[in-house]
């Protein structure tokens, strides 16, 4: 299981958090997603054989949130 933290641009609405969580969770091979609203981060743990960091980043960006960095 790989864990990555995506730093997004500042999140301003609490309902955004729910959207990101739901969308990322629907990807294959995702174990856990938590959106850290206050620090504007998304922490994802996933199975690298089924999905990758790029896929997750693309999903977040498709919802309209810029990913600033990944750790």
């Amino acid at each position, binding site marked *: 299981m790989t864990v990555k933290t995506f730093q997004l641009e500042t999140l*301003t609405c609490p309902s955004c958090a729910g959207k990101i969580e739901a969308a990322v969770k629907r990807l294959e091979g995702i174990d856990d997603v938590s959106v850290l609203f206050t*620090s504007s981060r998304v922490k994802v743990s996933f199975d690298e054989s089924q999905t990758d960091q790029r896929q997750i980043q693309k999903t977040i960006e498709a919802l309209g949130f810029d990913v600033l960095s990944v750790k």
Partner: protein
Amino acid sequence: MLKLEKGQRVVISGLLIVFSSALKYLNLYPIVRDILLILSAVIAGYPIFLNAYRALKFRILGIEALVTLAVTGAIIIGEFFEAAAVTFLFMLGSYLEAKTLEKTRSSIKELLDLAPDSAKVIRDGIEVEVLPDEVKKGETVVIRPGEKIPIDGIVIEGSAFVNQAPITGEPIPLEKTDGDEVFSGTIIESGFLMVRANKVGEDTTFSRILHLVEEAQDKKAKTQKFLEIFARYYTPSIMALAAIVFLITFDIRLALTLLVIACPGALVISTPVSIVAGIGNGAKHGVLIKGGEIIEKLGTVSVVAFDKTGTLTVGRPKVVKLKGFNTTEDELLRIAAAAEKYSEHPLAKAILEKANTKFFDLPTPKNSTLIPGQGVRAEVEEKEILIGNRKLMAENNLEISIEIEEYLKSEESEGKTAVIVGSNQKILGTISIADELREDAVLVVRELKQMGIKKVVMLTGDNKNAAAYIAKKLDLDEFYAELLPEDKVSILQNLQQQYGRVAMVGDGVNDAPALALSDLGVAMGGVGTDVAMETADVVLMKAELKKLLYALDLSRKTVKNMKQNIYFAIFVVLVLLVGVLAKVVFLSSGMLIHELSVILVILNAIRLLGFKSKF
């Protein structure tokens, strides 16, 4: 049109509504009026539609989708003003929410701004400026007045007054010289330091605090989890209600209005905003509370249990009384200190510390030997000196008179350790050593009781005499002495069953297990002790008991703030629901009340940032 900023959209759509209303007032151009309103709805609504569409692609129905549906419906039935007003208010609301939310997070930003941004390191004998992260462990860093210390380390040269407020919340600068520990993020007010780097980059205390605070602010409170579940069911229920209402009454306005109020925004945000502000306030005052759940727990504590050594007491034994029986007190101290000169025992250290304040130069002892469980034997100025307990004296045939024995007993009943000094078949005198109570211990215990804490107790591994003495002096409700670490945990569990929530306060070094296992662990003087920072639920950065009162006070205020927000939000949900069903509230007024309530909730939380406890 695509490139407009949020703020610009709000202004333009607002102006269009004003123009249109002005024309209506003047009774001019009805068609232009409608076009202006539709334009306003499109300009303000574009980002809403876009976000709705993006989410729908992932089969997620967000608030944007509901608003889009409502606005489209309003345009279809010819309610152009309502459509424009709803989009305008939604955008204005989210713009203001973003601004005010930023304020609740400002404490973290302020902390981030305190991070050092450069370091001056000595490399090959030359001073070079680098980024703080680039300093390597063991390198020497130079810091001048007004500059921030970029690393954690030990002073090797110079002396300075250092303001440690960024870490401990303590505004009075401390003097630091050779051998003292200094921390990243603190500021030199005057003086000059050369510091050997021990911890750099992410390992510094400052970085860790920042990291912990960030994590804490995102840890959800129990109430928050509950409210999120509520919202998850509330929204679809209202949508279903809208559909049913429409099918039964064919009242499309009513159905659309229900969509607008389907998201209980104020309710969802009520708890997290209070918690973010509360934790932020704590971080600025040297109190680190690790998350919303901890704040809720801390706000409802009924028992406070203290560890003794290092928590209620300073944790460093001191000589409190000298008594000479066959010699003067000064001579007693001089001889004893000389005999103990090379001893590492805490009691010996206390004696030496005291002697160093009086004598410049102590004789060197010969043949000094440690006798385990008894004391020390050494030769000082050709005389044999014995320092230790009764057993040591008895084994060496030194008789303790009734007078001395009585004196020893009375000292011991006050929780002191009385060390006996003997020489040449005579008792020279006794030295009483005790661990001093913290200055604010009495005040803190009294205030805790005043705050309505049911029981204030002490747990200690120390002997009954010492414990009883302190318990009486502090007016504690109960004390438990001679405990092993595992006893502490079971006593905490008992207290919890009897009285409710228990907070265990310790220094985090000696009692890390008890802190970790207790209901709520509070570590004092967290700076520099990593274990304490990791295991405790609440970390008081400075070794000052008063900070506990601050933490309790702040938590209670935060819980209160949270409750105000929740009750208000529930009230708004009910008012909206009843208002809509009674046909008093329509699209735009529904949106107005919704957005206003969200902003009021945030503003209420912001009040917490300015909270200052009297402690």
